[in-house]
């Protein structure tokens, strides 16, 4: 199930944030969304998720125009992993994960026993089954993010949107989350769009990259090809360059650090 965006312009109030964005996110691949704060990453995700309306242009998910879909149907196609996450009330982590199944549960019902079993299974896959009974707000940032990931996986939608899933995580948890995502995308044939601040995570884990600058697409394509010096400078910072580690992996580093 791919996501096709054609000529998308959108924004808030009367201020446009995205200008004429066209791109395709292909099935079974991780697509990294890269750009400054305010470059339109989150707005693009909100458009795909139908949370804000497109002013112009068209978004199709699995061939269907999302502006014509009901919320419940959309939740079966697209899931969201939000940043951080805080609940104003103390729910157990399992209850938080179970919420992901809302589109399958009748409004007057609650999740049945098989849903609960399935939720525990997803928790096990993500490695948070030991936290199922723990109150969500007592978890660390990394654990919360994993529970949020489990909830989105439990929603079982073919397209996943992850909005800066790493922003509150330490170094090893960032790699853990990305590694898990990579595994799920390849095992389940999910389509994942992940906005990232760290270009090195994109280089290590993403198949494709979309680079945004001031609401316009600077470059889109296979991550290894489009993330070159010129595009990095344009999308993220003028002082950046690509370098190689001793083992040959490519990394993005600030120019003055690399040259020193």
């Amino acid at each position: 199930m791919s996501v096709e965006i054609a000529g998308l312009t959108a924004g808030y109030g009367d201020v446009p944030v995205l200008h004429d964005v066209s791109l395709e996110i292909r099935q079974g691949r991780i697509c990294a969304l890269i750009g400054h704060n305010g470059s339109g990453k989150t707005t693009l995700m909100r458009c795909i998720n139908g949370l804000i309306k497109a002013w112009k242009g068209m978004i199709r998910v699995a061939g269907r125009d999302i502006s014509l879909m009901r919320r419940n149907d959309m939740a079966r196609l697209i899931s969201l992993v939000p940043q951080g996450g805080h609940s104003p009330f103390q729910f157990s982590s399992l209850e938080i994960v179970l919420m992901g199944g809302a589109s399958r549960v009748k409004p007057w019902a609650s999740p049945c026993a098989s849903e609960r079993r399935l939720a525990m299974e997803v928790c096990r896959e993500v490695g948070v089954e030991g936290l199922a009974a723990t109150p969500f707000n007592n978890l660390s940032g990394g654990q919360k993010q994993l529970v949020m990931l489990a909830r989105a996986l439990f929603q079982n939608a073919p397209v996943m949107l992850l909005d800066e899933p790493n922003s509150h995580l330490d170094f090893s948890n960032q790699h853990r989350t990305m590694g898990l995502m990579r595994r799920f995308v390849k095992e389940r044939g999910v389509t994942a769009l992940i906005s990232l601040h760290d270009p090195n995570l994109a280089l290590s884990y993403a198949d494709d990259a979309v680079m945004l600058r001031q609401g316009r697409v600077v470059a889109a394509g296979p991550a290894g090809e489009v993330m070159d010096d010129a595009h990095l400078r344009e999308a993220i910072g003028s002082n950046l360059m690509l370098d190689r580690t001793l083992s040959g992996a490519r990394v993005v580093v600030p120019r003055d650090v690399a040259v020193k």
Partner: protein
Amino acid sequence: MKATEIIMKNLLVILCAAAFLLALLASLSLGRYPIGLTDLARLVLPQLGLGGYVAPAPVEMQMVFWNIRVPRILMSIAVGSGISIAGVVFQALFRNPLAAPDILGVTAGSCFGAALSIMFFTRLALGVQGFAFIFGVFAVSIAYVIAARSWDRSASVLVITGIVVSAVFQAGLSILMYLADPYDQLTKIVFWIMGSFHVASWAKAQVTLPVVVIGSVLLGMFGWRLNIMTQSEEEALSMGVDVFRWRMFYVVISTLIVASSVAAVGAISWVGLIVPHIARYLAGTEHRRLIPAAAFVGGGFLLVMDTVARTVSASEIPISIITSLIGAPFLGYLVMRRRRNGCVDVG
């Protein structure tokens, strides 16, 4: 370990049920016309077809018991449950454990409507109850209509419009009270605003109980979805819950419950705010379990409060004075033990 845990959980339920039964018995027997436990048996058993075993109670006692005390007790339990459930729902919808069911202006509207009726429309068949109900619902509708005109569809806009509407109706109420005849109308208005179950009757119960009971059952049925309503709008929407439509659904039902309760017995402060916290302490936050717990605790709480209101002094004490005296300090206590993560939740 597991087995003892289950026993402990059930022990809590058993203790609560026992406390409730005790309160019910005490409330049935206490009052200006004391009815002993043997008298209770003489009153109740004949109604169950077991009259052969006891001598029937005196007619006067039967009148007091069946026509005054029983409807009053039923009303206090039902209203307590209904308002507490509405409190749970509002706290979930506004994602704030300190929200109360009157933040959208239902109480202010009802009080204004009641005062209007007491002053100008005493002869209408609809009466104070009808006016209070209509104006309570009307106030919330205005708050909703104003909020719908904002580009921002979040719940916080609704809170602001609720404050606006409450303030306007409170000002209207002040004008009415300023104009009211101090020897007759003003006293009536003041006493009505502070709420009391001494006005309870079968006639009122017939109008109020169906709304409160059906509304409460509906909210209980649609309880699991409230869990999702406590998450951010963006999260709830992406999980497939049309937050805006469902918020309307929950607000409409809660408002009907609160408006019909307030219309019947006057404003009852604090119950809708503090009972959800006690219920959360007992049953946790999951709304499928929380709503029945809140109904139970709220019903018992208001039953006890009303029994105090009618027995502690020679004359009837308005119920809101008692619920405020207990409720406000309790909120202070909650604020003091509020946790760092922002939850007042103790569960």
